[in-house]
């Protein structure tokens, strides 16, 4: 019984890490610029397709594709940011929604046209497959990899935000954009870089997600809801909050499915609603 509890915790944690990678970029960019980017998962999808293309058409090893997925996605996102999003920072939320949803539609159609509607298969290298027996627990190797990977990324992110000059600028912009501008911080420039990093992380998340949730053109829409839930529960602009929210939702989703399969599908929404009713600004959020 105890082992099953730990097993569920572990699997939920791994799932949560995936959600974290997919969501953290949106949380920071929303917190910084109040820019509603519903196309965030499109970047996740782009990362996924980069990995698939490199592996299946070029024969690259899985791990080598990950940095490329990150970089390509980040570059593409900068192009979007500079050509389109930039014009809308002062527009209404609703116009931002419409623009980014339009982008999602275009990206879904483009992915379907280029790659077809088929599920993209990915064959992991042998050392990431299968499972380990640790103290009576069955732990999937890929999940261990995912957790370690996400923890390292989180560590790097937190360190970059806390201990670098750039990080300080970003934090200042999240706290009070106008004041930061007044102090001579180039908020637009900092935002463009943050946006690229955040989208790159989503691309990385998309690449890592293929093995667990698959990849087809509907990815850009299918994951939007989960990402929004994580961002809202975590609180805008808070890396710690996003981490906690992703973990909490991943674990409660998994635990719900294991212990209460009958209401497994309700649980994630119930958890979200009660958390938001308790703390409307998110677990660690300071403002709404």
């Amino acid at each position, binding site marked *: 019984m105890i082992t099953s509890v730990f097993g569920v915790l572990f*699997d939920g944690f791994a799932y949560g890490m995936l959600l974290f990678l997919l969501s953290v970029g949106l949380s920071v960019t929303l917190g910084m610029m109040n820019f509603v980017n519903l196309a965030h998962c499109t970047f996740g999808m782009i990362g996924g397709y980069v990995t698939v293309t490199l592996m299946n058409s070029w024969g690259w090893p899985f791990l080598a594709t990950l940095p490329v997925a990150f970089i390509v996605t980040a570059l593409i996102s900068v192009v979007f940011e500079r050509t389109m999003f930039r014009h809308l920072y002062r527009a209404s939320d609703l116009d931002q929604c419409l623009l980014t949803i339009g982008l999602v539609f275009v990206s879904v159609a483009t992915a379907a046209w280029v790659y077809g509607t088929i599920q993209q298969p990915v064959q992991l290298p042998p050392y990431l497959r299968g499972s380990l027996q640790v103290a009576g627990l*069955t732990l999937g190797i890929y999940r261990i990899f995912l957790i370690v990977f996400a923890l390292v990324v989180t560590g790097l992110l937190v360190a970059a935000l806390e201990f670098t000059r750039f990080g300080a600028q970003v934090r200042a912009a999240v706290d009070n954009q106008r004041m930061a501008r007044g102090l001579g911080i180039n908020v637009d420039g900092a935002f463009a870089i943050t946006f690229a990093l955040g989208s790159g992380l989503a691309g990385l998340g998309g690449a890592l997600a293929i093995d667990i*949730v698959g990849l087809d*053109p509907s990815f850009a829409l*299918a994951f939007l809801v989960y990402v929004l839930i994580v961002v809202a529960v975590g609180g805008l602009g808070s890396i710690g909050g996003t981490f906690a929210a992703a973990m909490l939702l991943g674990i409660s989703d*998994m635990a719900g499915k294991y212990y209460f*399969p009958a209401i497994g599908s309700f649980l994630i929404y119930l958890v979200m609603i009660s958390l938001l009713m308790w703390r409307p600004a998110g677990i660690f959020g300071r403002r709404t």
Partner: protein
Amino acid sequence: MRRAMIGLALFAATLISATGAPEQAHAQDSVKIGLIMSYSGQFADPGSQIDNGIKLYMKEHGDTVAGKKIELIRKDNGGVAPDVAKRLAQEAIVRDKVDMIAGFDLTPNALAAADVSAQAKKFMVNMNAATSIITTKSPYMVRTSFTVPQVNESLGTWAYKSGARKAYTLVSDFSPGHDGEGAFQRAFKEAGGEIIGSARYPVANLDFTAFLQRAKDMNPDVIYIWVPGGPQPAAIGKAVAERGIDLNKTKVVGQGELTFDEALKGMGDAGLGFITAFHYDHNHQSAKNKKFVANYNADFKRNPDMFSVGGYDGMHVIYEALKKTKGDTDGDALIAAAKGLKWESPRGPMSIDPETRDVVQDVYIRRVAKVNGQLVNVEFDKLENVKDPFKARLPKQ
């Protein structure tokens, strides 16, 4: 102001260019078929496979039958939307003047369009939707796919016969899943087996570790899994391997979707030993199928699946019925001609039940094995000429 003017002009231009879409010339000697299924959205892939099957059949058999040219009018249903399906069927008949409707990837859509078929007395070919009751909704409908009870009751019976006594079932929590669960459990219990546990997972679920851990903890002889395709089978395969379920001790069985090609590619060797029951696989050994698979690959660079064969055989029914009626597209004439049709399909021998207008075919039991380095479904047992058992139980009218 100027930007708004430009915007408006562009906007008007888009709309006008859209109106300019060429109207299809209505040829006198043609038969128009309204194809209604999901070409976009979450269910776009089944839609495009059905469409490929149709294209291939028309390429092989020409686009003229009984002196009439076959014209296809494609309409996108965009997912589960019976209101749209009904509208598209109405529009196809009222606006495009089609002679029959075909396609139908999803049950609710097929049910809604069936009303229109019955009301307008138009021939309807259901090429995929598999819920049993659909064909009872319109007397002008035939089905060329399969029914859920047909495959799953066969599987339940077979599972007991093969020595399993305790079963755990895990199904997607929506009606087709419930139907599959019901069919398997019914047949398994009727044979003498015991269901020791069951669970239904959320429709959009993508991580199965928790469910399979629970199943494993109950120690059944056989785990029955029903998935609707998509990314879920691969996720299940991986979770089975990861949880360390020993397939020699515990059989993992399911309807064919569990071991679709892309699923097998995704799960890799984890899928070895999965057992599924289904009516078609591209690995089916027959001359007819070999040719079908080769032609299909030449045109579409991928293997055909149950959707493709549903579309292919659906066109066969349309062609043969039109030949019998000498091109007459009257609903009554066509359905009379379609009843009792018998032919050799890529899937094997099949026919249209003259009483229920439903499909009669062999159900194959297959095991995933490695052949020439490729994971494929190898048939090792079959149940012949299976009719839909649900309708056999209905009181005769």
